[in-house]
């Protein structure tokens, strides 16, 4: 249909060109040229690095390759992470164990003691006795069977002469009696 149409068109325009169309135009090409063309194109795409990577994997039928690659990648990442954590742990500056708690404890005891002594007037005898008992229990725990009776006298035993004098001056007779 199309050919007839062109022939018709050429008929009036150029009978010579119409005649030439029926002859061999002389153009040839190598045998199996088109069969080799595909690979030539893909070789050039490979050389240019333009071939789609995903397609390369799929076309080779080795999806396993990509899976292995990702597993290897994850294992490497995990190893690197473990190494970093180990290095951080190893080189971490260890805090020096300062004898602070002991010092603090001693200081607190001393502070309490001096506070009590300074303000001994403000304490009730029972409070002083209880404080003394607590102090004893903490410092030297009594044997299970030994009864520990709180005695205000124990506190007085540990007082210096000056402290004792000061205390006695402040105490009323009734307070002194009850203590005894």
């Amino acid at each position, binding site marked *: 249909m199309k050919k007839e149409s062109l022939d018709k068109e050429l008929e009036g325009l150029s009978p010579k*060109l119409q005649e030439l169309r029926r002859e061999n135009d002389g*153009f040839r090409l190598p045998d199996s040229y088109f069969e080799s*063309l595909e690979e030539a194109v893909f070789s050039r795409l490979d050389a240019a690095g333009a071939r789609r990577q995903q397609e390369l994997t799929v076309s080779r039928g080795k999806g396993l390759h990509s899976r292995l690659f990702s597993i290897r990648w994850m294992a490497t990442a995990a190893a690197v992470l473990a190494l970093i954590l180990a290095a951080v742990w190893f080189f971490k500056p260890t805090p020096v164990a300062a004898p602070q708690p002991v010092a603090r404890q001693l200081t607190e005891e001393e502070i309490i003691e001096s506070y009590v002594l300074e303000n001994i007037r403000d304490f009730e005898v029972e409070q002083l006795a209880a404080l003394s008992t607590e102090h004893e229990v903490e410092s030297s725990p009594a044997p299970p069977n030994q009864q520990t009776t709180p005695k205000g006298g124990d506190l007085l035993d540990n007082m210096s002469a000056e402290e004792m004098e000061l205390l006695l001056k402040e105490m009323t007779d009734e307070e002194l009696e009850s203590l005894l």
Partner: protein
Amino acid sequence: MQAIATKKNASDEQILELLRAEGTFERGFRLLMEQYRERLYWHIRRIVLIHEDADDVLQNTFIKIYRGILQFEGKSKLYTWLYRIATNEAITHLQGKARHSAASLDDSADMLGNRLLADEWFDGDDLQIRLQKAIALLPEKQRIVFNLRYYEELPYEEMSAMLGTSVGALKASFHHAVKKIESAFKEQDH
């Protein structure tokens, strides 16, 4: 989908479907090459004439298609898009050669004739060589219109979509080209 890939006369839609689907791009591209390689080869060969050049241009064309096919939006027919790329590649190739030799159009036509004679893949007679020289003397667009109509018998409507020129202008261009070739023959006869 598997059946489509082995079918030589797959439709453009089937080829595009393979190209766009995940994991079947290469299969679709091979099918596209199989489908269009001969038509594109002859289209290019008519423009550049020498087999070696046509081979080079065709490979460049397919590489361009490979890289750009996913940008094809389907606004035109697939072969129209492919022909446009092939035509541009062939013209770029010829322009590169002309720049390299810095020859005039007449000289270029003579050189082309001589190269054609030297091409082992051309065995046309004297009349065919004269025809090719006359075609080579045509302006670029006229030459393409002449080749598409004379050798490939492409309807003007399809040519119009491919070249972005009106049917009337294409008809006029073809007629003009035919007349020029006629007069070139006459001049050569004298």
